[in-house]
């Protein structure tokens, strides 16, 4: 039920680390985020992965996905993430386009 909160926090951690490694604006280089899920962490892995992939697949990330590793214990950790510097980043949303609405009377 709270997996979206956790996924948001995971993205916050990754965002902070990416900015430290590559500077702001590099989030679209993130291709994979690995998360360790403790079996007693009260986290539903499928739900967490669904939320994570939804967040990593959209702005400001765009082309990330997640991989979960089940471990024993009650911790939930961001284990590592992968960045790909060479592939062209995903096409950002084009917010500058002008749309002309033709009104037919």
């Amino acid at each position, binding site marked *: 039920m709270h997996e979206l909160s956790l996924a948001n926090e995971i993205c916050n951690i990754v965002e902070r680390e*990416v900015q430290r490694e590559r500077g702001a604006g590099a989030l679209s280089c993130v291709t994979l985020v690995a998360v360790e899920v403790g079996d007693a962490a*009260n986290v539903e892995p499928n739900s967490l992965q669904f939320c994570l992939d939804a967040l990593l697949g959209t702005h400001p990330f765009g082309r990330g996905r997640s991989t979960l590793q089940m471990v024993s214990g009650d911790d*939930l950790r961001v284990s590592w993430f992968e960045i790909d510097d060479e592939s062209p980043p995903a096409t950002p949303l084009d917010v500058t386009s002008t749309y002309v609405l033709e009104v037919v009377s």
Partner: protein
Amino acid sequence: MSVRTIVNVRERVMARNDDFAGTVRGRLTAARIPSLNLLSSPGAGKTALLEATLQRLGDTVRIAILTGDVQTQNDADRLAKHTDRLVQAVVTGGACHLDASQVLNGLDAVPLDDTDLLIVENVGNLVCPSHWDLGEDAKVVVMSTTEGEDKPLKYPAAFQRASVVVLNKIDLLPYVPYDAELAIRNALSVNPALRVFRTSARTGEGLDEWCAYLASLVAVSRASASV
């Protein structure tokens, strides 16, 4: 060509929440204010128990309340009728639990030098709130006689992390098929250290013991302040 780099992080996802919780705990400890985090499923009677508590202790213990709900300020409005002191509402807007940053923000409105006890009424939910440390001294789980006796077995994390369990609505015991002893045995099987209270917020039964417990928390805190 793609150049892939792996960046190791190894950071706990709850680290930021726990930092906020640590700040809350530090402020409350410095001000010698004991604090409780009330958990229950929806409808167990957290707000009714607090209403009755405020009525009884209102003059003797200065209680500040921070109450969380998914929507509406109904609980805060109900509680505010029973006290002139602060009742801070936190509307989570869909989130199933309070987190420590919300408590830290709420704490800014609490006059710490004019408060004896802080009670946080969490969102009605026995799953998620048990995993967010809010900086409280102790968690209290409220269960009631209109639920199943197996609540502690179904939601062990909440009971394991709690210090106190309150069995509320005991006035209904003659009318409902609820085995109170079985429910308490179940709670103690999950956490043998639980302190147990049996209350009826409606009739007042058992509230003397509950209120005496709250007053004792304040007395212990004051005694430590004078050492």
